[in-house]
């Protein structure tokens, strides 16, 4: 079994050390808002110049996996998504922390992240070349149908359908700010050159979720509903795990699939997974109130994306998301061009990377579990200091991502908007989903129209397109069906 002999280099102490260090560093970077896994990987690439491929690349993969996981820590404890991938984790993670179940929420997130990554890694190691071709099937109509399906989640997530729809449309409109993806014309920039790329996504999310919460706390100042400083144990109960099994399975599968499709990414995956878990749950009304399966779904999905995105990158030389694009740069520097040829010329590298994702996942689980008691101590910090520290971190994070001062105004603006939306019952989640998927939908709709010469038929043909369109219709109709069923059950 020469296959297994390729795994031996992984067992060297210095390689394990590098992976462990990478994973730990990734968790820290991920937990800090504004510092993303992408930046972490990019910053460390120069360090890997002198390392053997197995060591250098797996260190980068450790950062990637740790970084996507780390985002959940601040999302759960502080309602500040550390990375955009964790925005959906806020929905149930933060209420859990408020209920005094911060430890359990973090524990569930850690377990879910590990399961998601492991699942996708197994898929990566066994089916990569076969599945990778799925990535090539996606043309403009397929992407448009996928984004449309994603947008229909708003219908079931927003509570008040009308207000959710308004928030969604507003989000799509806001995402139009900046250079038009097809013609390059600037829209709504008011002559401010800093807005040439539109509102930056990360600062917008930080404002929408974290800063708006600061405003809400200010508003409630002097009232006695102080969040409990209590932190539960870190292991979820057997019942929690049984409740979450369904969410974990769905999250892992959805994350892996979305990961394979280039240009979508973990933000999309976690929202779809959250919605699917909620839709198929026996107790959908508990979602959003601090329900462990909600955390399980989003975290298993966004981490499954990590290993999922490696599939087209390794097998086809096409990165599945931004981080893997950077990782590909790391491979190229080593003189290794990813693609089908790499499987034949350097099986040791490929197998080493497969093995590395497993090792990194194990490290992530151990570090994550060990860090929980420490991280939860944040909640014991006096309220005022914590609030002001969050404000400072919001600013640094928003600035660090692009070093663009205009992003600071973006963040404050979205903070006020988010607070207003919360106050008047508009769903922040709906706006967030629209911000993620609006640009994907627009670019692909117009690219498709351009390519086909305004032929709308192209958007309703092809098996993948039809599948997603059918899912969209289902997802739109479901809230009504469920409502009717509930009403019937109530009257009966």
């Amino acid at each position, binding site marked *: 079994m020469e296959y297994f002999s390729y795994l031996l280099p992984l067992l060297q102490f210095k390689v394990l050390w590098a992976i462990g260090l990478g994973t730990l560093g990734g968790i820290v970077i991920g937990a800090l808002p504004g510092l993303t896994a*992408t*930046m972490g*990987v*990019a*910053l460390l*690439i*120069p360090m890997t*110049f002198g390392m053997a491929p197995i060591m250098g690349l797996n260190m980068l993969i450790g950062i990637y996996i740790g970084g996507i996981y780390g985002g959940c820590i601040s999302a759960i404890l502080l309602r500040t998504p550390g990375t955009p991938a964790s925005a959906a984790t806020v929905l149930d993670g933060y209420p859990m922390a408020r209920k005094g179940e911060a430890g359990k929420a973090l524990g569930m997130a850690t377990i879910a992240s590990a399961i998601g990554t492991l699942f996708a890694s197994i898929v990566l190691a066994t089916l990569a070349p076969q599945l990778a071709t799925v*990535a*090539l*099937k*996606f*043309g*403009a109509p397929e992407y448009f149908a996928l984004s449309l399906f994603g947008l229909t989640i708003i219908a079931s997530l927003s509570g008040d359908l009308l207000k959710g729809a308004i928030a969604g449309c507003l989000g799509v409109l806001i995402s139009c700010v900046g*250079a*038009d*993806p*097809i*013609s*390059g*014309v*600037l829209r709504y920039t008011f*002559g401010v*050159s*800093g807005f*040439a*790329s539109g509102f*930056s996504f990360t600062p917008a999310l930080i404002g929408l979720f974290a800063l708006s919460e600061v405003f809400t706390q200010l508003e409630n100042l002097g009232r006695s509903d102080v969040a409990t400083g209590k932190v539960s144990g870190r292991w979820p109960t057997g019942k929690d795990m049984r409740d979450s099994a369904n969410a974990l399975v769905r999250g892992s599968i959805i994350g892996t699939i979305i990961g394979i499709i*280039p*240009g979508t990414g973990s933000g999309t995956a976690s929202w779809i997974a959250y919605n699917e878990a909620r839709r198929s749950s026996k107790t959908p009304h508990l979602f959003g109130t601090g329900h462990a399966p909600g955390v399980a779904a989003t975290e298993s999905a966004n981490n499954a994306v990590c290993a999922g995105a490696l599939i*087209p990158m390794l097998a*086809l*030389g*096409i*990165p599945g998301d*931004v981080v893997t*694009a*950077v990782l*590909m*740069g790391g491979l*190229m*520097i*080593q*003189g290794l*061009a*990813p*693609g*089908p*040829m*790499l499987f034949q010329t350097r099986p040791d590298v490929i197998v080493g990377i497969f093995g590395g994702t497993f090792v990194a996942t194990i490290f992530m689980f151990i570090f994550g579990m060990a860090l929980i008691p420490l991280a939860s101590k944040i909640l014991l910090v006096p309220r005022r200091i914590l609030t002001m520290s969050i404000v400072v971190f919001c600013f640094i994070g928003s600035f660090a991502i*692009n*070093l*663009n001062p205009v992003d600071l105004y973006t963040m404050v603006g979205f903070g006020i908007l988010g607070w207003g939306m919360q106050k008047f019952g508009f769903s922040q989640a709906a706006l967030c989903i629209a911000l993620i998927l609006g*640009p994907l939908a627009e*670019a692909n709709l117009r*690219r498709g129209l*351009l*390519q086909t010469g305004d032929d709308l038929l192209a958007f309703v043909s092809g098996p993948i397109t039809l599948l997603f369109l059918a899912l969209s219709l289902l997802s739109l109709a479901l809230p009504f069906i469920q409502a009717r069923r509930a009403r019937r059950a109530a009257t009966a």
Partner: protein
Amino acid sequence: MNKKIAILAGLMGSLVATAAHAFPDRPIQIVVPYAAGGSTDLSMRLLAESLQRHIPDSTVIIRNQPGGGGAIGTSAVVHARPDGYTLGSGAQGPLALLPHLGSTDYTLDQVDFIGLVSRSLQVMVACKDAPFTDFDSFMAYAKTKAPQIGNSGAGGANHISTEAFAKAAGIKVESVPFGGASEAVAACAGGHIDAMVVSPAEALPQVQAGAVRPIFVEEDKRIDLFPDTPTAKEKGVDFTWSSWKGLFAPKGIPAADLKVLRDGIKAAYDDAEFQKKMTDMGEFLQFEDADAFAKRAEKDSVTAEAVIKDLGMYQMNKK
């Protein structure tokens, strides 16, 4: 009041004079106008590392300021204090192209070039299932129907250069913009577009896998990576295009400091380790001093201006 200013100016003058000998006495920042991890970013990180070794007592750090197709970071450099501590990664799009679209607050005249260390060569490839496989069949097809050619962003270097080729060859193309090169490569390998322009390093794995075929090279001579692929020139279309990786500075840096930087980049370029890593990454190494670099930039800018006018995009973002 005037006296005070005069004294102050004198003081500053002497400070600058003494500082000139000590340059650099604090970290030099190279602003990369793209996100961390791209090929420009990685090349600049390698260059920074090499510069550090060849400019005595220097620290060179990279600052990523992405956005606006590179305009935001480039603008920050152009308007930075001209003291030699803020340099820019000289990229073609933001310097030679975007000013013509009217979306920048600077022009090419506002910069001093330091040196060019490498060029990104361009290869036109036929995508999967394209109705042509080589230069001749491509041209024959283009005479009957405009081929759909993907690019990495509307108004970017990739887009304008394709249109410039079409102009030179006297054919019509339909440009299909994508959000970045890797999205376009994915669409190309999947057969959703007919052709696209990529760097040889990006093209190689796809060519080896048989997903795409190289049609022609936008150089004067054939290149080592694809020795069997003709150049546009030998096929009778007088067209070459490549994008740049080099350094520029805001205008007005003290001459002595500028010399330190220009000598530094030459030494950094000659560094064996730098050359090896750049080659491994698939970069095409070529040194050009400030004057040659400036001429190249000027030439590309003129070509781009004409194409952008033809496309009706000239100054479209001027408010």
